[in-house]
């Protein structure tokens, strides 16, 4: 009962409600704009959160995360272009249904299934995050090392694209984290005599570069692309018949999304693809998929929004991000002096319950805003790229500069923009770089501390049951793509 009142606390704070509203609104706008999304948006908004207290800052970021994930569906249905990668599967049936003159029905189903997925995943978060945090008390340095390795191998295994390329990208991310003074011995590494590099490469310049600037370069190659927009009269709530057709799909995809979200992988993107594939597999009319199936929309949207709460579980309980956006949220937590992990659950439960409650309310808010405002949000896509991207560049540059007031950060952002563009062009996902960068210090630190504990004996890792379990799971994660390929 006491916990419930803590969860509902944001409802009684006008400041938090205002922050939630703004976060939801901003998240929807970001989600609607192709190429942007909650990850880039969260990274750009991070400097502004410095003017807020820690809870308001994280509430703002989580609201952007929830609403941004849903917002991608609006563009997916109306212009056949996913606003966010997580909405890619929604295009497959959303746009064909909209072309049949049922854009309102398609968006209604996307909205309802997103909200159900989102709310269920927050419930998963409320129950599982404290349990996982409790379990984390059993973790020592070797266990954390093994867990981080497991996270990276999962990312390579079930993330988008080639597992080997994902592994290279993850290793590259960890390598970036080694730049600067070694935190244990104060020896300079890869600083090239540049004083500012001794503190390392910041997270924000890399994220903004890899997501916003590389997307700007990508957009520069797509200037002749023409979007065919489908007219939208109004969003319609699904009919009783639609509910009958889709309730099982929504429940299944919600479960899939929540589970995938908990794994340190690409969160919503992978979840929506699996949710869509499973919806098709279990459907009585699989032949309708790709031609405007309402089940297809429900399967993809319930799964990608369910991944939001799931991805917050390891982020809050272990400090290991479940997706690229939660990596940004994790950075926000650290910037505001909040260290995620089991101690956070014991020492600041009101803070965590505030986040849980805010995520629940954000889901309700984007339902209302999406339902009544989809038509207006859809108009945002009318802003031409030739005006939009120079503006995003200006905000990216100032936002990156503002965190450390370092011009070097701006150069780093541009460099990673170019690297990100070529990575994406040749099939390397940029998400593992982000996760690698954020996990890098943990991986190296726990490895070295473990070796101190084990007196340099590497084999001792395998004498710890939890660490051994994670290593076995990592091994399975690595060979899983090979087995899958052989089966195909």
């Amino acid at each position, binding site marked *: 009962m006491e916990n419930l009142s803590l969860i509902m606390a944001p409802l009684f704070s006008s400041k938090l409600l205002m922050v939630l509203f703004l976060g939801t609104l901003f998240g929807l706008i970001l989600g609607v704009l192709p190429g942007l999304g909650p990850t880039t948006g969260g990274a750009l908004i991070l*400097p*502004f959160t*410095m*003017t807020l207290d820690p809870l308001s800052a994280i509430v703002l970021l989580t609201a952007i995360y929830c609403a941004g994930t849903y917002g991608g569906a609006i563009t997916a249905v109306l212009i056949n272009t996913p606003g966010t990668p997580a909405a890619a599967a929604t295009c497959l049936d959303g746009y064909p249904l909209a072309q049949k003159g049922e854009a309102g029905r398609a968006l209604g189903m996307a909205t309802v299934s997103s909200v159900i997925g989102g709310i269920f995943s927050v419930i998963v978060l409320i129950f599982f995050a404290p349990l996982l945090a409790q379990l984390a008390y059993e973790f020592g340095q070797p266990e954390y090392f093994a867990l981080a390795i497991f996270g990276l191998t999962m990312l390579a295994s079930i993330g988008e694209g*080639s597992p*080997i*390329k994902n*592994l*290279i990208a993850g*290793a*590259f991310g*960890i*390598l970036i984290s*080694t730049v600067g003074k*070694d935190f*244990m*011995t104060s*020896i*300079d*590494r*890869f600083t090239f005599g540049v004083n500012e590099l001794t503190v390392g490469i910041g997270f924000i310049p890399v994220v903004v570069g890899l997501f916003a600037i590389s997307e*700007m*370069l990508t957009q*520069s*190659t797509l*200037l002749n692309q023409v979007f065919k927009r489908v007219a939208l009269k109004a969003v319609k709530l699904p009919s009783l018949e639609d509910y009958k057709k889709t309730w099982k799909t929504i429940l299944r995809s919600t479960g899939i999304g929540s589970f995938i979200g908990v794994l340190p992988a690409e969160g919503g993107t992978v979840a929506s693809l699996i949710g869509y594939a499973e919806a098709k597999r279990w459907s009585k009319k699989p032949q309708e998929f790709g031609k405007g199936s309402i089940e297809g929309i429900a399967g993809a949207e319930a799964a990608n929004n369910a991944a939001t709460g799931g991805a917050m579980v390891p982020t809050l309980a272990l400090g290991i991000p479940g997706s690229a956006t939660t990596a940004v949220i994790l950075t926000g937590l650290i910037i505001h002096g909040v260290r995620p992990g089991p101690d956070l659950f014991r020492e600041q439960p009101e803070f965590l319950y505030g986040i849980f409650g805010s995520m629940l309310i954000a889901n309700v808010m984007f339902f209302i805003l999406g339902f009544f405002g989809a038509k207006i949000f859809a108009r945002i896509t009318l802003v*031409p*790229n*030739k*005006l939009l*991207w*120079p*503006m995003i*560049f*200006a*905000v990216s*540059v*100032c936002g990156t*500069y*503002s965190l450390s*007031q370092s*011009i070097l950060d*701006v*150069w780093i952002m*541009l460099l990673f*923009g*170019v690297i990100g563009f*070529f990575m994406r*062009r*040749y*099939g390397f996902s940029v998400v593992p770089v982000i996760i690698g960068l954020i996990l890098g210090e943990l991986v*190296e630190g726990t*490895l*070295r*501390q*473990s*070796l*101190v504990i084990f007196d*340099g004996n590497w084999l001792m890792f395998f004498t710890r049951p939890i660490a051994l379990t994670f290593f076995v799971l990592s091994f399975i994660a690595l060979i899983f793509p090979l087995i899958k390929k052989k089966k195909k």
Partner: protein
Amino acid sequence: MNNVQNKKRANKSLPFFFKDSFIVSFIIIFISSILLFITFTFDIVPPILNRGIQPATFPKALLVLIILLTFFIYYLSINNPWKKEKKLPNSFYITLFSFILFIFISKFLDFFLGISVLSILVSYFWGEKRLIYLIIVGMIFPIIVFIFFETILGLRFPPGIITNLYYG
């Protein structure tokens, strides 16, 4: 079937060093090798201060892993060629050039002048020819961003010919 044969023929017709898979793998291995060489120049700590491993060991291991995995993806690409990417359009190179121009202008003249020049260049070459919109994107919006960051975050931007005028 024909498409597959054509694709294979198209890939076979190119010498290996022109293929994307070779170029990408070569660049990754080349840069990683240079970085690996650099790790040998890192200071070595005496055993008493050595926490588990030397500071250079971890980055060395990562670079070796990257090199080995890159060899592996190149090996896989021999039997399973990468799809040929389209040639990059001029608009891409213009955008890239405006990034370089931005670096020079913001370093030697003014940070905000750099943003303005880039915004106008990109917007113009991406197809915006109306003067009023170029002014909005290149001047009015950067001014709004400047004031917003300056007043809300209390940020002090790097000195330059325009920024100095503002700060007096």
